[in-house]
């Protein structure tokens, strides 16, 4: 979706503010939110793409005005409501008022902790071969889905070069909608700064994104057309 979360290239947000000796969490509740988000994901209640989409779907003013873990909390609670894992009456009561469907992998308990403190695998096998190979020139599609996508706006319509193939992975656009893994080939695609930002851009700049195959069309550079 073309949400406020898709920030690459936007102006006006000011300087990067660095906090010296920043703690992992500024308040104890932040750690609880992080842990709850990881736990319900690890035991199959909601996946990472659904959680990202829920954060992106917060009203823009809320998104911009909320601290990082406050966004996580608001998005997690909304996602659990949307998926009917909890009820709005239960949120108001601060207690469970009825049984809910169990998580596919049961209660998230101590023996599961290792699974969330180590990175999971998103690689999935596909039968098709990759369409592109390193060196191929591609154009990022001009897509503007209202659902979750991981193709940032600033590369859409622009021409880049395939640098490497990173295997086939869960496709977030499908996974966020509960449509399954729908695995797709993933590529590192490099764009020049001038292609993205125009003639005034830093001539030494190159930017890459990790782009899934459905985001890309074959292309040629303009000078190839002569």
């Amino acid at each position, binding site marked *: 979706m073309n949400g406020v979360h*898709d*920030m*690459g*290239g*936007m102006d006006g*947000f000011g*300087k*990067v*503010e*660095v*906090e010296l000796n920043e703690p*992992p*969490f*500024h*308040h*104890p*509740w932040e*750690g*609880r939110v*992080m*842990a*709850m988000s990881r*736990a*319900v994901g690890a*035991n199959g209640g909601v996946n990472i793409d659904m959680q990202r989409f829920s954060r992106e779907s917060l009203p823009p003013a809320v998104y911009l005005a909320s601290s*990082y873990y*406050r966004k996580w*909390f608001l998005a997690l609670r909304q996602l*659990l409501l949307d998926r009917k894992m*909890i009820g709005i009456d239960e*949120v108001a009561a*601060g*207690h*469970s008022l009825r049984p809910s469907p*169990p998580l596919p992998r*049961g*209660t*998230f*308990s101590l023996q599961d902790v*290792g699974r969330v*403190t180590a*990175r999971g*695998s*998103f690689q999935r096998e596909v039968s098709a071969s990759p369409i592109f190979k390193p060196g191929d020139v591609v154009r990022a599609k001009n897509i503007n889905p209202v659902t979750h996508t*991981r*193709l940032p706006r*600033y590369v859409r319509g622009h021409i880049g070069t395939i640098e490497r193939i990173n*295997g086939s*992975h869960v496709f*977030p656009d499908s996974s966020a909608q509960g449509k399954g893994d729908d695995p797709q080939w*993933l590529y590192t695609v*490099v764009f020049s700064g001038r292609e*993205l930002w125009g003639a005034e851009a*830093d001539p*030494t*700049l*190159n*930017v890459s994104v*990790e*782009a899934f195959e459905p985001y890309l069309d074959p292309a040629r550079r303009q000078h190839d057309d002569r």
Partner: protein
Amino acid sequence: MAGDDHDHDHGSELSEMQLRVRALETILTEKGYVDPAALDAIVETYETRIGPRNGARVVAKAWTDPAFKATLLADASQAVRALGHVSRVGDHLIAVENTPKRHNMVVCTLCSCYPWEMLGLPPVWYKSAPYRSRTVKDPRGVLAEFGVTLPKETEIRVWDSTAETRFLVLPMRPPGTEGWSEERLAEIVTRDSMIGTGLPKAEP
């Protein structure tokens, strides 16, 4: 960063966010979705055990062991697994090497994707709108705010983490560290140098 949740934590009164988060945890616990002890363990792990020391050890080894460096650049997931100090880093950790000709920087313009296992939880600035918006367009301006100035002919390569691929910058070993042990070298490898917003220095 503005948050009404920053104003209520003094004294004994529980903040609005503490109350709301506690309520959600109670509901999830009563439903059998989570065990609070497991949540404690997750928090404790990220507060005390998983941090940039993991990545620093990898960088220091790459600086001192050419064979390891070659493996790291070819397949970082496999190289880090072989070191044995991180149980799992996923299938697609990619190490990118800084050279006199090219400086690498990592950003996630869409959210906050970051190699937690190598660097710990990302700092607030990495997740902030200024860093996410500007790094892909004005990386030198961002670097200047970190006190980093590079020769103007150095290529800047920005890696936007838009999938589950994770990136670790292998910074250049600073001069004046000849003969240092791996352990001593690891001490000067900062988190920022492994994101690309800092440079290691012989004086930590």
